[in-house]
């Protein structure tokens, strides 16, 4: 996704960033992956309802533009750390939904061979160092990965995704401080969906914008509308450029919304149906992106329908692959605890 090409037409200079920066095929691929994330989440939810997936899961429906926009300037070698709401990040970073479903189904063909599940989904081959079950747990780890990149001089940048809830954890503050004093190539991405489980940011957070906290660590703090792909991608490009140039970290606050509850136990008592409905009807990231693509003549309804159909088939095949895959043998329970068996 990192090969950004300009449309190279000066007459397009008033277009939003993404439509100047990416070619039509890339933009269509972004739409495809936003659909892939949404349909994956729906497929996972459906499989959970049918009892094919146990445990719990945290769905990112409504946050697709944020995951895709941030990952656009990243190469396959660049790394991310993700969160409990990490399925979208994993797909945006290039994972195969077959192996993701297999992981959720607890199968040996899953990315974590059935040991991690939804909350630890990872794809190390594509630089995804893993979702994390601990709020803010991945933030210092991302800073460590950025320290490696700096020491090894391998040119990698690292993105740490986290939610609004994480910005009140000590790990967030310690990690941002260290990234700044050591000028590390890391981008902190706070996907602020308004609620840490049930507690709104207004009730939990002393600053109006989480990006305001960047000032305390002498780094740029950027606020973007996380439901507008182009805005997110533009901020990410600037932050990645800064990181690669050795100028240090950036904090991006991507304001977005999750349609589903926090997890499967959520009764949605802390927000109104009207509020949820308003986001779905008026600010849906896929709807907004499609409208732009159509307006700029990049895709038509037929093209959109073809993408939907292809995604539907990919999701179906992924679920079938997961169903057909073998489960781990209980005799292998202690595999992977240590590198070399005791």
């Amino acid at each position, binding site marked *: 996704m990192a090969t950004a090409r300009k449309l190279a037409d000066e007459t397009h200079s008033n277009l939003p960033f993404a439509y100047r920066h990416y070619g039509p095929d890339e933009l269509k691929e972004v739409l495809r992956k936003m659909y892939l994330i949404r349909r994956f989440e729906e497929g996972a939810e459906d499989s959970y309802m049918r009892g094919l997936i146990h445990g719990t899961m945290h769905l990112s429906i409504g946050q697709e533009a944020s995951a895709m926009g941030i990952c656009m300037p990243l190469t396959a070698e660049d*790394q991310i*750390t993700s969160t409990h709401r990490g399925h979208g990040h994993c797909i945006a970073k290039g994972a195969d939904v077959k192996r993701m479903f297999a992981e959720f189904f607890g199968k040996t063909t*899953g*990315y*974590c*061979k*059935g*040991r*991690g599940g939804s909350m*630890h989904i*990872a794809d*190390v081959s594509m630089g995804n*160092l*893993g979702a*994390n*079950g*601990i709020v803010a*747990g991945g*933030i*210092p*780890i*991302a*800073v*460590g*990965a*950025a*320290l*490696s*990149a700096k*020491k*090894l001089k391998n040119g990698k940048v690292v993105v740490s995704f986290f939610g609004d809830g994480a910005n009140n954890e*000590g*790990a967030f*503050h*310690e*990690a941002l*401080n*260290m990234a700044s*004093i050591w000028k590390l190539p890391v981008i902190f991405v706070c996907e602020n969906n308004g609620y840490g489980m049930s507690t709104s940011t207004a009730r939990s957070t002393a600053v109006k914008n989480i990006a305001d906290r960047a000032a305390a660590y002498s780094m740029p703090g950027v606020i973007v509308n996380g439901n507008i792909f182009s805005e997110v991608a533009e901020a990410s490009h600037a932050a990645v450029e800064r990181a690669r140039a050795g100028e240090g970290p950036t904090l991006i606050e991507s304001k977005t919304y999750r349609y589903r509850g926090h997890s499967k136990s959520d009764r949605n008592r802390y927000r109104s149906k009207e509020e949820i409905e308003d986001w779905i009807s008026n600010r849906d990231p896929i709807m907004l992106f499609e409208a732009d693509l159509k307006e700029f003549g990049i895709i038509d309804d037929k093209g959109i329908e073809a993408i939907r159909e292809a995604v539907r088939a990919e999701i179906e095949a992924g679920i079938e692959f997961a169903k057909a895959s073998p489960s781990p043998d209980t005799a292998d329970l202690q*595999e*992977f*605890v*240590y*590198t*070399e068996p*005791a």
Partner: protein
Amino acid sequence: MDAMPRELSYSQAIQEAMAIAMEADERVFLMGEDIGVYGGAFQVTGDLVERFGADRVMDTPISELGGAGVAVGAALTGMRPIFEFQFSDFATLAMEQIVNQAAKMRFMLGGEVSVPVVMRFPAGSGTGAAAQHSQSLEAWLGHVPGLKVIQPATPHDAKGMLLAAVADPDPVMIFEHKLLYKMKGHVPEGHYTVPIGKAEIRREGSDLTIVATSIMVHKALEAAETLSGEGIDIEVVDLRTIRPMDKATIIESVKKTSRLLCVYEAVKTLGIGAEVSATIAESDAFDYLDAPIVRLGGAETPVPYNPELEKATVPQVPDIVTAARDLVRGKR
């Protein structure tokens, strides 16, 4: 005339091991609070910053949780960090990264990654630093699958086990008793390793096995020397690693002596002594026992400031002598 074997202090041995590791491998670097020009709270890193520079002997802010997490992240992505905690008590501030992240990352990701981080913890009482700077928390970490936890008792082992830890692909936690830092002993030149997961018999004997850890190995040896004058022949096993524990050596020793005394500084209950005792109770060595198993551990109290109270908190040589004598003489 033979040259005297070279002697180094325990802290010099650790410093030498870190220098050798850094010489040999560019990926090895040190992180910790005040380990640079200050030389570390216990002067273990000493002047290494002058030799290797501030990029490889990195002072961190006072951020134990974040710092430990950075070390974990660096280990996950190709580096070989050695992270120094100023006091082992501060592990409490970093438990999240140690227990939830470092220990589990490889497992959770189905073996796709490893976390070759080494963490060093100056531990134990005896320095008058009171309740928040004197604890022995090794059993806490020993309870976590995915970690390896070691307690070298001699300068020789401190160097060899640290070099083994740096070479280990998994996270290794090293508990170093602060009162051992100045202890001198023979330390070979150059690179060598002492295996993790292998106990060492420090003294052979036939009447009683003492399984001891860290500084208690030396106290047990002193007690054994005293009791040899009374015709009591004690075997002292230096456990060295608490996870993975060398159960075979303990079992073999108890089969030979038929009596077991566990001596460790950490709070007595729910600790290493319970694990060692249960190892015997669950093994065929149980049938060899001629006396109940006895544990001598730390008192059920925070470590106090007053020096006499502080001493009374942990087993001392006379306590070991009495317990061992009573066991062998059948008074237990």
